[in-house]
């Protein structure tokens, strides 16, 4: 394919990916409370609104809290599991790996409905912390996959050397293993964090009637009255995701995480 055709094709796909976001960005700077494009007037008031309006601010706060806590819990589940699978030969333990990947592979509505029936049956339905556990289970796949990748990348002779010098499991983990897998740990956390921030259906089915996260708030606004604040929140989310992924790319090997050979080899 000639260079021109290739560029044209990339531009087309790029435009397709960017078009809705460009329109939303345009809408978000409207001067009046209308969803007009091209924007009429220019105002950043809708960005300020995210932090000034109590409803939006509370939703932002709820979403951030949920994402920070659930991503941490997801990593707390994934780390010992992937360490165990790396350290021990226990084929039956792979079932937990499978269980960790299942919620993400199945259509999300299934995990959401399962958790809804579960919380309703136990009588805990609607408690804010149930959303943290629900999201952690839903997104445990991400740190699990990045950490498994991280553990396979560890050169076992390093660990063996430490063991020969008399270090026990705990010391080896702290001084050898942990520094080596930290990039994978961080990127696993970041993936889970960003996706939790954007997640709608599980949050809605578990705490939708007692708590408003940002995606729930946007959906409600979509039904009961448009405001340009929805657009400014969307832009904020896209920028946040792009910044976080750029940081992963800056400090880690993003392409290797996504399946390419590592940097040195290529």
């Amino acid at each position: 394919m000639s260079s021109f055709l290739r560029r044209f094709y990339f531009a087309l796909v790029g435009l397709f990916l960017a078009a809705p976001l460009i329109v939303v960005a345009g809408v978000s700077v409207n001067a009046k409370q209308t969803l007009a494009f091209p924007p009429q007037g220019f105002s950043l008031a809708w960005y300020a609104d995210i932090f000034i309006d109590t409803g939006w601010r509370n939703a932002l706060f709820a979403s951030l809290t949920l994402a920070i806590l659930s991503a941490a819990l997801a990593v707390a589940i994934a780390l010992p599991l992937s360490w165990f699978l790396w350290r021990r030969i226990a084929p039956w333990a792979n079932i937990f790996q499978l269980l960790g990947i299942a919620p993400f592979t199945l259509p999300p509505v299934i995990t959401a409905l399962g958790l809804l029936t579960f919380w309703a049956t136990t009588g805990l339905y609607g408690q804010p912390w149930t959303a943290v556990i629900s999201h952690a289970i839903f997104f445990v796949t991400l740190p699990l996959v990045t950490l498994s990748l991280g553990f396979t990348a560890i050169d076992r002779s390093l660990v063996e050397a430490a063991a020969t010098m008399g270090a026990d499991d705990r010391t080896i983990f702290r001084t050898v293993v942990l520094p080596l897998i930290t990039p994978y740990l961080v990127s696993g956390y970041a993936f889970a964090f960003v996706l939790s921030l954007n997640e709608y259906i599980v949050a809605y089915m578990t705490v939708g009637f007692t708590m408003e996260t940002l995606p729930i708030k946007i959906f409600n606004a979509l039904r009961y009255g448009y405001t340009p604040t929805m657009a400014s929140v969307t832009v904020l989310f896209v920028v946040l995701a792009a910044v976080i992924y750029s940081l992963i790319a800056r400090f880690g090997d993003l392409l290797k995480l996504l399946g390419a050979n590592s940097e040195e080899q290529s």
Partner: protein
Amino acid sequence: MRREAPQRLSDYGPLAFPAIMLTVFFVIPFGTMIAVSFFQRQQGGFYTPAFVFSNYERFLSLFFAHVLGFSLMLAVLVAVCCVCIGVPFTYLMTKMSRRAQIVWMVALLSVLSLSEVIIGFAWSTLLSRTAGITNLLVTLGLMEKAVALSPGFPAVLTAMVYQALPYTILVLYPALVRLDPTLTEAARTLGASPLRAFFTVVVPALRTTILATLIMVFIFALGSYLLPQILGRPQHWTLSVLITDQAIYQSNMPFAAAMAVFLVLVTLGMVALTLFAGRKREEST
């Protein structure tokens, strides 16, 4: 340190927390859902333990046959569109510099992590009368006056392709980036044009990868629960939308659960197909 089998009970210690969490908060909820699918629904949104098949029997109506047929058709269509756009795109992307690849990947990941709510909102704005793409055409003098392009089937399909395309590219990427470059080089040396080399060498070499990707994108599209609701009319609702609707708005948990179990079975069937395709690939290499 060599890997070794656990010897003492304390060796299992690290496994305890993940095992408990995944069992209590995934296996048990999943079981609860299956149990509820056999429960008897009471008036007012409650249900009582029972063992009835009435929730499953409700599928056997023409309406649900229609919904199921539409869901499957939509998911197949999305998967085919995404693979047709994604394979050449990913192939060309792997030929770019590492730096350019990273930039594209950051963009793709950012779009992929967008909430369905946000994608639905963005597309409904883009396709709306007041803020939509048609305004641009009016400004350019190509159209008489702005029109609304949603709700409708094209809107649902476009937004779902938008949602699934970054996923498709990420699924294809590992296989394509490791593709032996000598394959195409050989074809080029023998005088094939790049386009011809792509279709006669790259595509056949990736046959099973493409099949597996089709199935994975199909499952992904089957899970879309908001886009048909935001951008479509009720006749464009899929099984996932209907499950949400029954669970939340109709308060019919047993029926929603029965539909969800059915959706799991369809998905698992597809996963089995993927694994089967993967095994065939291993045999052939």
